């Protein structure tokens, strides 16, 4: 197959992903809510809502394009080994903070994050560190923040959420470490 042909099939796969079942489910919900808005509130409110939706989209798209480029760059710059190296620490606040940052910088969805946790768990990594990592990833994962939160909710909202949450993974990790110590049996019997 030629390079061009390969690109074409790839594009087709992407479009299939883009316009898959979940897209049509959403389109259905959108149509239904649009019809409901028209019937309940009348054409004036419907038009205003439609206008607002389109205006919001116009605001989102330039942000989204930039955010996706940022996400692509971070994915390239931060390697898996780099992340794993940050998770070697044990039971200190700085180890937990490092784990949180590693979680926030982990590219990819839940598959990548939980696979790494599973690997490190069998390798005997500190429980608190792993919980701080998982919580950092869930709360502050850069990919979700960049691809969803900043474009749709805005940078000011994102900043406020970051400030409100950045201590939570450390607290969660510390709590997890204490609980594991309380219920711990000899380390061989995990």
């Amino acid at each position, binding site marked *: 197959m030629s390079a061009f042909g390969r690109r074409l099939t790839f594009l087709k796969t*992407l479009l299939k992903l883009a316009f898959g079942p979940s897209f049509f489910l959403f389109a259905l919900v959108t149509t239904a809510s649009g019809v409901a808005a028209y019937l309940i509130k009348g054409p004036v409110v419907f038009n205003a809502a439609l206008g607002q939706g389109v205006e919001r989209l116009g605001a989102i798209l330039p942000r989204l394009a930039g955010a996706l480029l940022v996400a692509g760059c971070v994915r390239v710059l931060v390697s898996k080994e780099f992340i794993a190296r940050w998770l070697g620490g044990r039971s200190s606040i700085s180890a937990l903070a490092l784990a949180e940052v590693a979680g926030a910088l982990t590219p990819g969805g839940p598959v990548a994050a939980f696979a790494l946790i599973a690997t490190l768990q069998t390798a005997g990594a500190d429980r608190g560190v792993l919980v701080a990592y998982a919580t950092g990833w869930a709360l502050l994962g850069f990919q979700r923040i960049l691809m969803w939160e900043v474009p749709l909710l805005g940078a000011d*909202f994102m900043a406020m959420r970051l400030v409100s949450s950045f201590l939570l993974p450390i607290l969660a990790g510390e709590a997890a470490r204490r609980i594991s110590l309380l219920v711990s049996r000899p380390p061989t019997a995990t």
Partner: protein
Amino acid sequence: MSVVILSALGIWCLASVLMLTVWRRRRGQTSEAVSFAFEQAIILVPRIAVAMLAASFIAVIVPTALIAAWVGHGSGFVGLLISSLAGAIVPGGPVIAIPLAVLLRSAGAGIPQIIAFITAWSIFAMHRIIIYELTNVGWRFTVLRLSVCLPAPLLAGMAAYGLVR
């Protein structure tokens, strides 16, 4: 409108700096970063478009007064509790949760309540726990993580109250 332009400008500045870094340090992977962005854009834009339209339509149908009363800025701790519970039971990924947050905001929910909502969804997203977490890391880790994170949405919401004020 100027906020929109400013935040877009900020993101593009960051993107340029990072692109330059990739170009200087990992020259061979520049196209990888760009094609990631391109692929994701193709997948995301149609969904975001319909989701945002739905959020705008639903915002005019839902009883705004009710939402403001339950999870408005003045709803305080009870409002944080309600929005945390709501966030914890959202079935699905960001394509559902984030437009829901946009909807809540335009229907009059308070910023701390929306933060509690997103935090709860991030931590407790049911589909993610069942599909990825339990199968990969086992119930022991999952239970530990969930129990230590139980107060997180409320803490985040309270911290946000401190910031808003």
